């Protein structure tokens, strides 16, 4: 299962942090910093996986943003890589050509995108069309 999802920029600023495991605040902050440290030093010649504590991080970089998913060692790395891409495609569609600022100013909407696609550390919905439809309906209720 997914232990946490992080979106960070290259400078290490958190753009989204979703935790599926209980951590204390200090611990969360430490994890954020550690993830940033291990992920940003890697470049294109490296794999998209980092062994991290007792878990592993599957990450993808889109422009200046790192999308990191921390999963169990026994999980399928490749499909989580695909899940990240799926998520980013939904964001892109939702924000019409998404950029970092969209995520900053609409951070609470990004959380609802996450909640539509993942839940309690499990993949919940993978169809982009369905997710987008739900999100638009949510917006119309505001």
């Amino acid at each position, binding site marked *: 299962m997914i232990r946490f999802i992080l979106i960070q920029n290259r400078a290490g600023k958190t753009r*989204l942090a979703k935790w599926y495991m209980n951590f204390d605040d200090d611990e969360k902050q430490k994890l954020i910093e550690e993830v940033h440290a291990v992920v940003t030093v890697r470049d294109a010649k490296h794999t998209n996986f980092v062994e991290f504590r007792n878990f592993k991080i599957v990450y993808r970089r889109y422009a200046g943003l790192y999308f990191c998913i921390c999963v169990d060692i026994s999980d399928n790395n490749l499909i989580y890589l*695909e899940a990240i891409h799926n998520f980013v495609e939904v964001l892109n569609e939702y924000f019409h050509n998404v950029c970092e600022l969209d995520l900053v100013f609409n951070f609470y909407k990004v959380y609802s995108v996450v909640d539509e696609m993942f839940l309690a550390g499990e993949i919940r919905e993978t169809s982009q069309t369905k997710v987008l439809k739900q999100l638009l309906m949510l917006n119309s209720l505001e």
Partner: protein
Amino acid sequence: HMSSTLSVCKGIVVCSMLGLLDYTAEQREMLDPRSKKGLLAEQVRQPNPIRLRDLIRQIRSAKTAAEERSVVNKECASIRLTFREEDSVWRCRNVAKLLYIHMLGYPAHFGQMECLKLIASPRFTDKRIGYLGAMLLLDERQDVHLLITNSLKNDLKSPTQFVQGLALCTLAAIASPEMSRDLADEVERLLKSSNAYIRKKAAICAVRICAKVPELMEMFLPATRNLLTEKNHGVLITGVTLITSMCVQSPDTLEHFKKTVGNLVRILKNLVMAGYSPEHDVQGVSDPFLQIKVLRLLRILGRQDSQASETMNDILAQVATNTEATKNVGNAILYETVLSIMDIQSETGLRVLAVNILGRFLLNVDKNIKYVALHTLLKVVHQDNQAVQRHRTTILECLKDADITIRRRAMELCFALINPSNVRTMMKELITFLEKSETEFKAVCSSKCVTAAEQFAPNIRWHVETLLKVIIAAGNNVPDDVVACIIQLIAESGEAEQRYAVEELWQRLTVAPLDVQPLLQVATWVCGEFAHLLNTGETLRVSETEVVEVYQRLLWSSLCTSVTKQYAITSSMKLATRMPQATALVAKMVSAYGSHLDVELQQRGLEYTQLFTRFDSLRGPLLERMPPFERSRLRVSQEAAAATAAAAGGGAPIANGVQEHSNNSVSNASTVNNNESNALLDLLGGMDEQSTKPTSKLNDNATISNNDPVTAAGVPKIPGMNADILDLLGGFDTGHPTVSKAAIGDTGGTAATTVNGASNNILDGLLNNTNNYNTTTLTNNAINTNSSLINSTQPTTLTNTGDYGKLTAYERHGVRLVLSFERQESLSIITLVATNSSSAAITDFLFQAAVPKSLQLQLLTPSSTSLAPSASLTQLIRVNNPNKAAIRMKVRLSWSADGVPVQDQCEVNNFPTALWQY
């Protein structure tokens, strides 16, 4: 109505417990939507709080961290103020701002209560932010759950699907055991809802609830099975997830869901066969996420179940052959399929297909694919070594990859692939790798090289050559036991290999940089011990002055550690006896050390000077050639390495000294017989109680560590031995050398007669030889030397191969120990098979055991100390039971699972009685 009143009361209680009494009035107000108390008044008193957007801008425009902090602090203060003023119009905005601040890493827990108020608000926007806040600021450990449970209960009953959705989402994120119990009924109801959007959220909620309170699993079973008949992929994927998590948790449920294998196969078949469906297509593959979930569940259901495995064989073959492998998605599915094939009881053909898929992965240009291939091959290699061997060249290529994670995996895999037929080529590659690798690899890699060389060496010459290459390539990053291991190997090899080693190491010694300690230690030891080969060879002719010069360079260098110098100074003493012309030079060099700042070196200096002056006549015999060591096995674990490091800190060279003395005592006083030696042992006991204690303890308990000189049993021995050594040297000066020296020798001899493999090896480690001075006692013993042990494990006429059955001695923390038995007269041979049933990689596995006094126990080297998931290791245990007593055993286990240390113990009392009643 009753229940809502009740929960308000509960809410008040909790609030007062938390010291939040001032919220209780508002709490009541919150539940009363008619109240609009003081709204206008508030607005007049305070300027409007800034908008979220403006706050984000302000924070972003902060140029330094300090500036950002001050913006945040100011805003937090104003948010706190509005919270206190019970103003509800800005609550949503304020909480949203607070959540942003929280995301940046600032504390925001004072907003928890405000989130609860927002959740209770009838407005959807409020609820949305409120629930988001609850998910971010609360987790199952907070005390506010009584408050939120009631809101959740109401919202789960809401007519609006989005409100229900929000509540389910939050419940799935923060449910505690109590909440799970309170709300399980609601979730079960929603699992049967007609709305797919709600059903899938409820399914994941159920995953969380079952994980928190396993007893609740049963009530979800009927609704869960129905989820598999769905057409909606979202519901299917969550349904499969729910079943998977239930099956992992409970073996009974696993049995229950065995019936669904057919359904799952059909779902998978439909996915594979289905044409293009835009909704679930990912780069030409139909819903890979669902396919993978189904494959994973099939794996769990098919594990150790031949019938279920047979049902899924065909579809697995179909997925494995039909999936497009050009894109990452396709490979993700193939990867999951391979895992399933290897895990269930699949046909051989299918397994070959699976390993070939991994072989293709290895050739993929995509690093990620390569990585998972190596990772998986590492799991598979224990099951199907031959199939993996075919991809050896590709795996060797991966040693040169730019990515460190790939190199690490490849290295581990290479070591797993070494066998007698490929050891030469594999070792060559691995040594090249060792030379070029990062420091963090070197210790592990060199240890593994040594183990592999020991296991598979085609001949001694190759073995010596390889170990020398390893130690040269690894530089300073060699675990200390490797040094001892190489010395031992050279010492026990034939003259030709020794000559080769001397020539090679002498060359190295003259040119080696002085900051590489392990090589220098081996080189000085060998050049000292076999100094006569330095100038008798056909190619090598070194003059005495040359040798002494090299030693001087080393001894006076500040780059060499004290341990290396201890090696060197003892070695130079040997030089002096083997090369008479060097004596004067060495005496001069050694005497200078009498005033060295390092206490160890100073002591050596003083003692050795004595050997040039007062006891010159003893020098020759004392420093004679070492007898060949008895073989002690090498266990290359970090723990052992650390312990050796401690011992080697001052122990190793001293031990050399002792052994030379004891040699002398034997050659001088060869008339010492058994009776006398016992008397001498008593004498020693009187002299120094501390030194005999560990020995007698070993005699009594027969507590044995892993036949390793430096683990548990070895450690307490070391101080004792040092004490002996001090006695010995003291005795030296008082002019009774023979008595005390003989006593030392015989401590060794007597300990060895405890028929105790460990103590035997301890002495191997410390004295390096046990059998030379007291051969009779040792050979009388049924199980003393390892060589005789190994021979006797071959089935002989004495072997009683009667079936004693198998015994599962231990099964916890993902490790299972199964014992099987054999008996030869009074000797029971127990084969221990330890299996890793967890998904964690186990390293440093250590099995220790103790038996009652009347039994004698010996543990042989385990086949490995690390266990990949589902891999096994074996270890032989020999129990000698001359008195036919009931066999009992206390077992202590330790290992690290993915780096987390685990320790456990158990007692085994149910050995088959036929082992001693015959």
